[in-house]
């Protein structure tokens, strides 16, 4: 069914090579992130993580951008 599409291009390798590249990068960056043990416990920031506006510590959402306070 896909013969025409594949024949038109070189084959699935043209998609698989970038996919493999991305998978490798994901694994590498994820391992580097975890191996470093740098994952700090999430803390309530005084500024909105999304828009950097000052955040009321009791607010559930940022008054400036509307996102949930992280």
């Amino acid at each position, binding site marked *: 069914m896909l013969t025409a599409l594949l024949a038109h*291009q070189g084959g699935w390798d043209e998609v698989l090579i970038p996919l493999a590249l991305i998978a490798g990068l994901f694994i590498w960056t994820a391992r580097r992130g975890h191996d470093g043990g740098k994952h700090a416990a999430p803390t309530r920031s005084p500024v909105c993580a999304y828009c950097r506006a000052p955040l009321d510590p009791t607010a559930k959402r940022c008054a400036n951008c509307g996102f949930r306070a992280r």
Partner: protein
Amino acid sequence: MFVWFWVGVPFLSVVFGNVWATMSPWDTLARLFAIGDEPAREYPKSWGMWPALVPLAAFLLLELVLPNGSEPRVLAVALVAYTVVTLAGMARYGRATWNRVGEGFAVYFGLLARIAPLGRDAEGRVVLRPPLAGLPEVEPCPGLVAFVMTLIGSTSYDGFSGSSAWVSLTRDLSGAALTIARGAGLLAGVLVASGAYTLSMSAASAVGNVHWHVLAVRFAHTLVPIAFAYAAAHYVSLLLLEGQAGISLLSDPFGAGWNLFGTATREVNFRLLSSNAIWYAQVVFIVAGHVGGVTLAHDRAIGEFPPARALRTQYAFLGVMVLFTVGGLFILSAR
């Protein structure tokens, strides 16, 4: 007129800035009748840009999914309904606010206008700026990522729906089954694009120790050049070839035999662009759009992360850009 509107206005926007702010019939109507000068209610910030996604999705359904979506009667009903909803939104939450978060076309063209080398400064004066320089100023808000991913995913599906693979898959379908297949294809296009972006942001999150959703929102503006590149690559031939039909239609808009501007008998010149020229233009759009996206992402990463981590957060994003570039060209070449 569909070609001039959906394809022509984006091109004008990325060259001349926010032309839709002047052209919008809904904004003009609201100004004419002083609708939304004083909003009845304050807009809930938590809604963000989600209301703008509704007309965008409806428009995409008409364009890409529903079999009778381009019939004048259907379009007229949709236009009247959208006019009523838009004016109601402007009356309730204010004209400027609704143009920013609810009027889907204003939101789309407004995002594209930030690519333009022409913009306005804080005092409203027209200024020259580097291309793309307006995009980092996009304010983060709920729905922004979904809106941009819908643009990218829908254009990808539109391109893929012309490929021999899709034609083979849907050859035996008709009626409701074909409509459902088209709807599923559209949804799949949006989900695949969103999934790839989410994965790249998750990888950056692991390196940068920032929640992936925060990154997804703060890097969302980097996808706008890609959204335009996809639209430009897919529709450039449509604009330059079928767009010519609009010139003759201007003289006879109702098919009543008029010749208002003497152009009613003008025929479409299909030799204006060769297939080679179209292909090279498509490659240039796709590659330039992704280079623009990577440039903006690098710029944002330097501001978000310490120098030692900034580069590493971008590897996965760069990989996704390569995939999007190859995928975009793959879809275009398969048509």
